[in-house]
């Protein structure tokens, strides 16, 4: 789904929460997934203005999970290591932004090319 505005963020959160609930994630995990979606969507709106978020059910060998793919064609990130370090998010608070998302989810992958955009894929598995 497209992410261009605060309204889109709300829709993405809602769909993420609905999918998490449908898959049987406990409410606390659904909240954390919604939070991760918010952080990712927020990054899209702040840095690239627009982008996409895709939610998917994923299947492991013996478990189910949920993946969130956030992509944009924005300015991209020149220094991913720096972006993943605490304190470099717009808010400046410890643990917010991308490093925060990494801690909320089980898997985290980021690809970015300056001038071409950024894609973040995060996964959470049902315990």
């Amino acid at each position, binding site marked *: 789904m497209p992410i261009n505005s*605060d309204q889109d*963020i*709300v*829709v993405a*959160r*809602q769909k993420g*929460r609905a999918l998490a609930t449908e898959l049987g994630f406990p*409410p*606390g995990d659904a*909240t*954390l997934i*919604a*939070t991760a979606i*918010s*952080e990712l969507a927020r990054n899209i709106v*702040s840095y690239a203005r627009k982008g996409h978020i895709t939610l998917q059910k994923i299947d492991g060998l013996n478990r189910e999970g949920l993946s969130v793919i956030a992509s944009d064609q924005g300015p991209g990130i020149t220094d991913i290591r720096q972006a993943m370090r*605490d304190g470099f998010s*717009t*808010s*400046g*608070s*410890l*643990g*917010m932004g991308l*490093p*925060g*998302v990494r*801690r*909320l989810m089980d898997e985290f992958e980021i690809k970015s090319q300056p001038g071409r955009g950024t894609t973040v894929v995060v996964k959470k598995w049902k315990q």
Partner: protein
Amino acid sequence: MKMATERKTKAEPRFEDEYACQLREYAAGSGEAALGKAYELGRRALTEGKSLMEIASFHHEALQGLIQGQQDDKRREELLQASSDFLAECLSPYEMAQRGFQDAVKALRQLNETLEEEIKRIAYAVHDEAGQLLVAVHLALAEVARELPKPQKDQVGQIEGLLNQVEKHLRRYSHELRPTILDDLGWLPAIRFLAEGVSKRADLPIHIEATFSERLPGTNETTLYRIVQEALTNAVKHAKPSNIWVRAWKENFALCCSIRDDGAGFDSRLLRIPSGRKGLGLIAMQERVSAIGGTLQIESCPGRGTEISIRLPLEDENANSRLARG
């Protein structure tokens, strides 16, 4: 370019009012939009430095306002459920931050451990490797001296005397870097050994007073030793004191230690300004102490000396004696 999305301070309503307002919206059925706002509020609270206790109290007030006068039990039940969902959403940024802090503390501990390993390695290199080289130099000199006439032989003898001093100093430094005493005999003998060295080099008395001497868990012993070491180094380097006092005592499950000098001092209030510059040594001391859950205080006044006090949490006695053997 970063956008200043969060800088709308002037028009922004008070946090608690906004919280109560959004909670009402959510209870009235506005769904995800209000939950999204709850998360934004949590994020804002975190950036503004609001404590969890404050949020709990704002939540309590908002909740009271919400259910006041509500007679219908079923509706009350719904409202309670809605407010607990809303609170969880608002706290989720704190969950992120909390995980961040846990990671940071873990990283700090690891850093200190790596540092200790590195220091051990350097201490070994200084003591053993440099020591062996010096032995080789002694042998080579003796060889040369055999062939020389008396006056030159005496000169070589003087060189050997100097080399002996170098060796003595190297040994001393390597022991202070990572005293085997610390591992073998514990914190108090190690600190005494350290103080003796500093006292001799700086030519000033260091008074040590400890109300207990038993062994402590390994990290506590190392931390204590490193803090005293840094504090003594700082005092001698910057304060030019005539005396230094080191005191250690136990108090309510805490291990306390203070290092006080009667030197030049400085205005320690400057340290409390967030933007104020702190020396690297001071930051390192503070981080070392907070990595194991302790606190560090510095009191100083120009002309009235400096006192550094630390408190380290102690686990129960049984845990201590068990750990001390490890």
